[in-house]
């Protein structure tokens, strides 16, 4: 087996399996340094209303544009804040015009408490956007049937959550995620949301996920730049572990060191 270091996004090969968010950093400069340290080539961003008095967004956008240019990377706009398929479709179209990309991280939130995706609205929006030429990267729960339906609609990339956005709780239900990987072997699977620490990302990659998308775990670290490096290394370690093929677990102990001729060996008989 060989290590395939590129992530496949609708046929576009991307040479990092870490997708990184651009929000919540202590400053735009730290955001920039963290993204560079992560090695990520895909940066998520969003759209919001901006009243005439506000100018802060323009600077952030400038930073992100510089980052994309410097990393030879890609923008991944999201539809954060949308609660219906119609809202998400409109926001996706607005994003496509501004960012000049047909990639869209499709978020349709169904519950304000845990920001859980609404599967019904998500499927409707996905169908509409795919028909309109978008390359949809849907953010969904770790429900196998929802993932299967998204794949059947034509999503080549599917992004189930690890746990609710911003919680840092890690992989709530590894069984579900392993099952999705097993049942959708051809899909590009990206674990999105809820990642808290590098070992969470490593675990996802050990399961055979194709990539990890995160924001808070890096941006809210005491040292975001160092944490970005840690995640980059964890993802590579997890991927290598998966590709290398892990040993089977065994119920009983087996000595690692050969027992024959070890000191003080008590030969029977």
């Amino acid at each position: 087996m060989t290590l395939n270091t590129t992530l496949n996004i609708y046929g576009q090969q991307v040479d990092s399996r870490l997708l990184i968010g651009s929000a919540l950093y202590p400053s735009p400069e730290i955001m920039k340094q963290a993204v560079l340290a992560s090695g990520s080539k895909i940066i998520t961003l969003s759209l919001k209303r901006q009243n005439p008095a506000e100018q802060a967004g323009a600077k952030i956008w400038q930073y992100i544009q510089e980052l994309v240019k410097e990393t030879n990377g890609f923008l991944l706009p999201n539809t954060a804040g949308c609660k219906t398929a119609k809202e998400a479709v409109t926001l996706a179209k607005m994003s496509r015009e501004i960012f000049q990309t047909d990639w869209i991280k499709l978020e349709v939130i169904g519950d304000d408490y845990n920001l859980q995706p609404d599967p019904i609205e998500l499927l409707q929006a996905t169908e509409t956007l795919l028909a309109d030429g978008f390359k949809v990267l849907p953010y969904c729960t770790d429900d196998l049937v929802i993932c299967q339906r998204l794949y059947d609609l034509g999503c080549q990339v599917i992004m189930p959550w690890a746990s609710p956005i911003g919680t840092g709780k890690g992989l709530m239900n590894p069984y579900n995620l392993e099952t999705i990987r097993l049942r959708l072997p051809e899909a590009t699977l990206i674990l999105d949301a809820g990642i808290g620490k590098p070992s969470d990302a490593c675990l996802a990659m050990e399961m055979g996920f194709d990539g990890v998308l995160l924001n808070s775990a890096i941006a809210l670290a005491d040292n975001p730049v160092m944490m970005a490096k840690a995640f980059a290394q964890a993802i590579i370690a997890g991927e290598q572990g998966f590709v290398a093929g892990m040993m089977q677990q065994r119920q009983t102990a087996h000595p690692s060191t050969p027992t024959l001729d070890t000191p003080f060996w008590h030969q029977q008989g």
Partner: protein
Amino acid sequence: MGQQSMNANEDDNTKMKLFMNGQGIEVSVEAENLNMLIALQHYLTPEQRQQSFAVALNGDFVGKADYQQTLVNQGDSIDVLFPIQGG
């Protein structure tokens, strides 16, 4: 408020009430002449007009190429969105 917003006057049909990013404003333009381009000129600063933004009218996307020909009517809601950081 918009740069050229005026006092409310229900009987003056040369003024139109619009909701720009959820905020009610009035613009002093003949209703039949008001298109998206003019509405945006009322609302956005000259600096913002040079920035990247996208527009929706009553929840539907309006492309830049269509601003001129998209008529805006009394009570319409216009969203003007700009890039920001996101996860």
